[in-house]
């Protein structure tokens, strides 16, 4: 990926990395939703799935905050 001449990553690089980094928590959330649909009535799996959704929302939020800081 490209870097600017003063070794700071370019906006393009930052955006590309952020998009890349968001794909794993998004994959996780999509799959977890399916698990929630498949495990209705299974309290243990539902609780674990909700915990994972919560953690992935926090991770996505962290990536967005970093992106927002980079844009300032």
């Amino acid at each position, binding site marked *: 990926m490209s870097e600017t001449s003063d070794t700071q990553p370019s906006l393009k690089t930052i955006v590309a990395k952020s998009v890349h*980094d968001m*794909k*794993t*928590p998004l*994959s*996780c959330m*999509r*799959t977890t939703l*399916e698990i929630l649909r498949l495990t209705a009535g299974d309290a243990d*799996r539902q609780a674990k799935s909700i915990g994972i959704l919560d953690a992935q929302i926090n991770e996505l939020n962290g990536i967005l905050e970093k992106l927002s800081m980079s844009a300032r």
Partner: protein
Amino acid sequence: MGINGGNIPSTLAAPTQADTSTMSERRKFTDVLLVDDSKFLADILAMFFQLDGYTARAAYSGEDAIGHVEDQVPDIAFIDIDMPGMNGLELARHIRASKRARGTVLVALSGWDEPEHKQNAVAAGFDHFLSKPVDAPAIREFMKNLGEA
């Protein structure tokens, strides 16, 4: 090169114990290894495969995955490319160099989906490439396209 994930509607319900026994008997793949440095993703994908009647194990690094492969060779492995330490490309080369595991079907998972990334995956020994974000219905469709019930 294999299929990229898409938004495919799911219509399957969770299999019962009797259903999974029958499925295992007619499936080409029974043992699935999920490798991703995101513990959450590796675990949730493993849970999805287990609910679909497979024996599924999760590994959280290339090194961890080698231990799993040496313990029991999987029929198919989904491997994240971008991992710290031993990355997915190095892991694929390691598996392909192994006499015991060289027949394992290797599926690359990657958030990078430019042609060069796919070419690198093929060169390392991957059979298929799935772009993230993946989801359960897309993986189910992918398995179906591999000939799974």
